């Protein structure tokens, strides 16, 4: 048991560190450091342009999408090398959030299902950040029940005509390309009538509308399809096999491990070490300590769990559904921490800017954003189901709509 790199890992780390040290965009360092949570805001630069520049620079030197094959714009690196890279990239990794969905989910799905010609054309600009991708999955009537989606694709000659609506699409407004899951056959049970495509987001008939979120920001969009044409050669997988294709995408989401999710704990600890209540630091109160300890073991537990996952990667093992615990623990912990950070300030905890509490706004941002953390990419409840069914091998839920043709499934509760 040790925290040392193998000689090969150490050599890789040294090479990565040297390159980053020589090439990182240091002009953004302070802005990136000041964005410990949520959106990155650059004072004197456009975040999209800055992100694309850094990604292009990395791609030119062979540091983009490290685990992808070289011919598609990657480096052919091992999973552990990818983790080492992200540790070394550190702060500058925040400039990659624009590409997370494209690199983490769309790219691997394209690699598994697109034609060789499409892979050669589409993947290198995705890797180098010159093209941004989004994932058109969730719909107003199908969130956790993704397979209940209703966006229709109907065959017309060599094309498909798409009509319907997607929702909660991150980054659709910046995106050039997308993967899209549609219903191609409503007469068969829901999982069997789905088909996956990729498409140009500038296609005629696509209407993108940002969603104003309850925290006031707009990271997500509604995307409407009005007779949008997709050529059949942009189909991913067989007609009717879209559910299995989407599982490839979702499995790849889990590979993005190596860094533990933020919980807000270090920020809370720092605040309470300094915040004085009734003449003494908050951290000296035993009720505060009991709560801090409870969050400390979760934050530490996530960190050491990620070390165990990295060790398994280093041995060549693939991460599995057990990695679902990261977001499940981090989301709820952050919400509790943000609530308690306000509570300890007394009534002024309600204020965004509070005397002596520079972090007040940060904890309010956590409070408002953690609502979404507990829902996006699998709700707390879906993650518990995944742990129960895929890790603990409990039986799947009884599904009343499983063998019913999709168009006979009831759509209204009352």
């Amino acid at each position: 048991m040790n925290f040392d790199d193998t000689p090969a890992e150490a050599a890789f780390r040294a090479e990565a560190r040297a390159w980053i040290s020589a090439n990182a965009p240091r002009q953004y360092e302070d802005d990136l450091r000041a964005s410990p949570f949520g959106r990155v805001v650059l004072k004197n630069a456009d975040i999209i342009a800055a992100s694309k520049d850094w990604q292009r620079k990395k791609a030119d030197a062979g540091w983009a999408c490290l685990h992808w094959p070289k011919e598609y714009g990657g480096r052919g690196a091992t999973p552990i090398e990818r983790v080492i890279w992200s540790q070394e990239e550190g702060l500058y990794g925040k400039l990659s959030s624009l590409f997370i969905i494209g690199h983490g989910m769309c790219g691997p799905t394209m690699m598994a299902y697109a034609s060789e010609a499409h892979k050669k054309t589409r993947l290198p600009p995705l890797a180098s950040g010159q093209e941004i991708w989004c994932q058109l999955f969730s719909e107003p009537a199908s969130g956790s029940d993704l397979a209940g989606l209703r966006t229709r694709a109907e065959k017309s000659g060599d094309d498909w005509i798409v009509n319907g609506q997607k929702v909660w699409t991150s980054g659709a407004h910046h995106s050039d390309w997308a993967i899209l899951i549609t219903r191609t056959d409503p007469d068969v049970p829901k999982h069997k009538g789905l088909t996956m495509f990729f498409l140009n987001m500038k296609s005629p008939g696509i209407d993108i509308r940002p969603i104003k979120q309850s925290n006031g920001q707009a990271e997500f969009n509604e995307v409407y399809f009005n007779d949008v044409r997709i050529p059949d050669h942009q189909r991913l997988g067989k007609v009717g096999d879209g559910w299995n294709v989407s599982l490839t995408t979702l499995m790849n989401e889990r590979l993005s491990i190596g860094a533990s999710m933020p919980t807000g704990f270090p920020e809370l600890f720092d605040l309470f070490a300094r915040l004085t209540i009734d003449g003494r630091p908050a951290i000296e109160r035993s009720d505060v300590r009991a709560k801090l300890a409870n969050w400390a073991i979760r934050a530490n537990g996530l960190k050491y769990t990620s070390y165990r996952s990295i060790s398994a990667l280093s041995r060549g093992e693939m991460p599995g559904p057990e990695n679902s615990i990261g977001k499940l623990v981090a989301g709820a912990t952050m919400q509790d921490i943000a609530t308690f950070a306000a509570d300890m300030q007394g009534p002024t905890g309600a204020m965004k800017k509070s005397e002596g509490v520079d972090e007040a706004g940060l904890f309010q941002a956590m409070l408002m954003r953690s609502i979404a953390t507990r829902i996006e990419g699998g709700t707390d409840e879906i993650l518990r189901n995944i742990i129960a069914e895929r890790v603990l091998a409990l039986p799947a839920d009884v599904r009343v709509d499983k063998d019913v043709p999709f168009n006979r499934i009831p759509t209204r509760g009352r």
Partner: protein
Amino acid sequence: MNFDFSDEQKQLRDEARRFLDENCTTKEVRAILEGKDVYDRKLWKGLADLGLLGIAIPEEFGGAGAGRLELCIVAEEIGRALAPVPYSSTVYLASEILLRAGTDAQKKEWLPKIAKGEAIGALAFVEGPGNPTPGGMKASVSGGKLSGRKTLVADGGVADFAIVAARAGSGENTLSLYLVDLKGAGVTRANVETVDPTRNHAEITFANAPAALVGNEGEGWTLLTQALDRAAVLVAFEQIGGADRALYMARDYALDRMAFGRQIGSFQAIKHILADMYVSATLARSNAYYGAWALSTDAGELAEAAANARVSATQAFQLCAKQNNQVHGGMGFTWEADCHLFYRRSNLLALTLGSLSWWEDALIERMRKRNAA
């Protein structure tokens, strides 16, 4: 990074598990619960024969000379089996204290006997309600004779010797550790009843019992807290072993039990209980591994890592044990079902090295010191 046990260590785990599966079923645990004896002597002999009592004792004192990581591995299996033997008191506490602070003569006298299963040791540090404090102990030593009363001494009723915290004087730094032969003069003991009768606990009264200093005079509080920290990591492994078994016992029941025409494990209400048990047990395991690393390397982070492992493992075992009862429904409240064995042990282990709130406080205090440094 290799944040895992080695193949050899995993082999040791498999051997220990196989031995305990065969020799320590819940039938053996229940024999002690129901008072047929105070500990399982046959199992104790078997552990000695396998070399597991002296696994971390150097060869020169009759042990196997393995490290603390190996000891963590064995601790997890002892916890998983709910082994009704004086392992934690003898191995994590008495033997570890002698190794770190004992004189050469003390080591030569007791460690080979421990390794052979011929001597049981204990640590006596509790005198009454409340968690230990340096100023709170009244037991005293004068002219090499110890007097006072200790209670809740784990395995105190069966131990051959005890390490006893006592003071020689009334000042702040007068607490020291002493070794007392419990079969010698001036010692009377009576077993006490606890939440978990599968482990022996006793009250010991010392009346001018001959006592030999362990470590330096006045170092008692430091040695005691260091010993509790080290034992906290090892007990955390017992706790994650117990938590893991309680989790899978509940899982298996959820697969077998039918209600409303389906396996109860197909209900989300049950699944989510089990998923939360898994999450807690997984976090506790990762925290325990970090504690194991700190213990085995004597890292500067040990005190913090130990408190972190302790708090996490205590929570996980208590959660898994109580929810194992819940998943079993009414069956879980019967004497016949094994649920209460885990519930009892989880609640005992949550207290005996100092209670959860004490360790929570220690964790935050230690984190604060590190951050301030």
